């Protein structure tokens, strides 16, 4: 119960922070959605990092390290350190500059203008929203799993011992689980479905009252919380598992008990590892990150995030990966339900090895990481809907402010409700779902890169690229049985050997080829557009 009080206190603190941010609200559109372009280097660093580090980074990385060993760090952490900063450097700064100059708030506004196509927005809108849903799903599922994991009783001979809540506290279908729907029972803890609902509610409230400023502040605060508590968790878990006198001795003692294959990447195909490098390109097309980029006070605000992002990733991921591989050692016995669900390896380790107070604080830290992504995604959905659909097609004078606000919030609530509904079913692995979501966004990277740097990109070429990307994504997602087949790869035969690559490679190549070929054979953009986006530096202003 102590853990629950601490988590509750933390959620209340977040609501207060949103309330405080709302008192500084300047009453303008730019302030609500872009914090009046007032975000400096430190806040930009924390909000960008907090937004990109989600349940995937903590819960997913620990679970995946538990399953397949240390290779997960190279697959997504060190690669992200290179590629994320590359995206900030080559895209973030340019898009910030164009956004400031031409008054963009969303990616779709930029693409409509750059590619001289209003209907491109109609194609991109459902795709961007549709790809955000699995991203939201990761956070919603993981938050419920974490709260349930740290409040569960112990399982002894199939019986729940020391439950936080006695049997009968919650409806039977939540406590015991139902086949196909709410499958896993609560085991004496807060039911996962109820916990997810509370987290969604809290994030919705502070996003609604605080806007982008509240979101940026909450992100910064939560990023500090999860980084500090992550390091504390690592030290505490090492101390409990190792049982030695010093921190280093603990680490050394634990490492001796980890199975040899978890210390290497022997279970991972080298080609698969190489093609993972494309996955972090997703950062270039995340709509919520685009919105965060536009909050920057100046181009110089990007310098700190570009440099420190890889180090911050390392600080968060290395402990999580080590905790994941430690969970495979014979120093700790994971019960079968935990072994079967890698999403709860981290909360299990925290609960088993830290005291109730620390366990509550550490759980709050994990939730901080999850919520610091959910908030940006929620805000971004509302912005996309109002900017690219309601105001764009309805006209700015057709609706009152109150009506527009109501529509935006209703849309956000509808999407969150849909996501929540999906989360009630048989949960997928956070890591697997995350990779599918990121792969979809990564396959749209050629579009945004070409829009910024390639004059010859045409409207028809962009349609072809988007359709090729999303068509390939849908086909392969279906082939993987909607992410149920966790080790799904695309394979091809060459010279008598079969090679396995990540699905993102097929999506990316198809999108790129379609973009280049179709652009080269169709009419180029008008001179007016080219002059607007690629002004001649020698021309008089």
């Amino acid at each position, binding site marked *: 119960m102590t853990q629950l009080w601490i988590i509750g206190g933390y959620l209340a603190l977040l609501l207060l922070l949103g309330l405080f941010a709302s008192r500084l609200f300047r009453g303008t559109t730019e302030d609500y959605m872009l914090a009046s372009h007032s975000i400096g280097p430190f806040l930009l660093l924390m909000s960008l990092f907090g937004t990109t580090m989600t349940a995937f980074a903590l819960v997913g990385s620990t679970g995946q390290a538990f399953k397949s060993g*240390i290779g997960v760090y190279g697959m997504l952490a060190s690669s992200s350190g290179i590629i994320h900063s590359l995206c900030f450097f080559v895209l973030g700064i340019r898009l910030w500059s164009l956004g400031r100059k031409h008054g963009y708030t969303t990616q779709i506004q930029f693409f409509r203008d750059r590619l001289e196509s209003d209907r491109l927005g109609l194609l991109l809108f459902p795709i961007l929203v549709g790809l955000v849903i699995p991203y939201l799903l990761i956070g919603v599922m993981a938050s419920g799993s974490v709260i349930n994991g740290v409040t569960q009783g112990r399982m002894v001979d199939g019986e729940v011992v020391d439950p936080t809540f006695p049997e009968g506290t919650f409806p039977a279908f939540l406590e015991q689980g139902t086949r196909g729907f709410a499958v896993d029972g609560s085991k004496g803890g807060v039911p996962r479905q109820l916990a997810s609902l509370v987290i969604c509610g809290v994030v919705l409230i502070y996003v609604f009252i605080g806007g982008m400023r509240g979101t940026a502040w909450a992100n910064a605060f939560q990023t500090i919380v999860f980084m500090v508590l992550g390091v504390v968790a690592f030290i505490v878990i090492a101390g409990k598992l190792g049982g030695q006198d010093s921190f280093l001795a603990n680490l050394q003692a634990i490492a001796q008990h980890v199975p040899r294959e978890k210390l*290497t990447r022997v279970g991972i195909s080298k080609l698969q590892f190489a093609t993972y490098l494309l996955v972090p390109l997703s950062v270039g097309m995340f709509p919520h990150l685009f919105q965060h980029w536009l909050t920057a006070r100046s181009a110089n605000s990007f310098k700190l995030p570009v440099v420190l992002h890889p180090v911050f990733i390392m600080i968060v991921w290395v402990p999580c990966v080590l905790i994941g591989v430690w969970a495979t050692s014979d120093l700790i016995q994971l019960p079968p339900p935990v072994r079967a669900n890698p999403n709860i390896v981290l909360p299990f380790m925290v609960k088993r090895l830290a005291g109730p107070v620390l366990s509550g604080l550490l759980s709050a830290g994990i939730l901080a990481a999850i919520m610091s992504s959910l908030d940006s995604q929620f805000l971004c959905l509302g912005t996309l809907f109002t900017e690219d659909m309601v105001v764009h097609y309805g006209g700015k004078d057709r609706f009152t*402010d109150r009506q527009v606000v109501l529509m935006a919030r209703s849309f956000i609530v509808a999407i969150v409700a849909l996501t929540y509904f999906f989360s009630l079913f048989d949960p997928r692995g956070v890591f697997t779902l995350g990779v599918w979501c990121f792969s979809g966004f990564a396959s749209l990277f050629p579009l945004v890169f070409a829009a910024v740097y390639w004059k010859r990109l045409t409207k028809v070429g962009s349609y072809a690229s988007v359709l090729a990307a999303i068509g390939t994504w849908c086909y392969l997602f279906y082939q993987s049985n909607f992410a149920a087949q966790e080790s799904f790869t695309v394979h091809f035969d060459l010279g008598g050997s079969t090679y396995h690559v990540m699905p993102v490679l097929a999506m990316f190549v198809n999108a790129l080829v379609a973009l280049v070929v179709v652009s080269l054979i169709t009419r180029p953009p008008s001179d007016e557009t080219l002059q607007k986006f690629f002004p001649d530096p020698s021309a008089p202003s």
Partner: protein
Amino acid sequence: MSRVIWILILLLIILHQDNWFWADPHLVFGFMPVGLFYHACLSVAAAIVWWLAIRYAWPGDLDSGEPERLEVSRQKRTAGLSETHPSTPSGDMA
């Protein structure tokens, strides 16, 4: 200098595809798997390369970012949603 930076970034990407520690279970400092240690070092190296990039390859042609459409962006909304929307392109034949 800018070219050197891009070569360094390319080098980071190549170094990321390490085959040499693939199956090596050696523990650095007695606790850190060498494959993990190598990639953690790569993260630090990336930060150093990006520091060099912002120092020596920062784009000099960046627009100051002053908005062209101040009249739109400054319209007030009491509840905080936008009236800003760039002009709808005409002649969309898609």
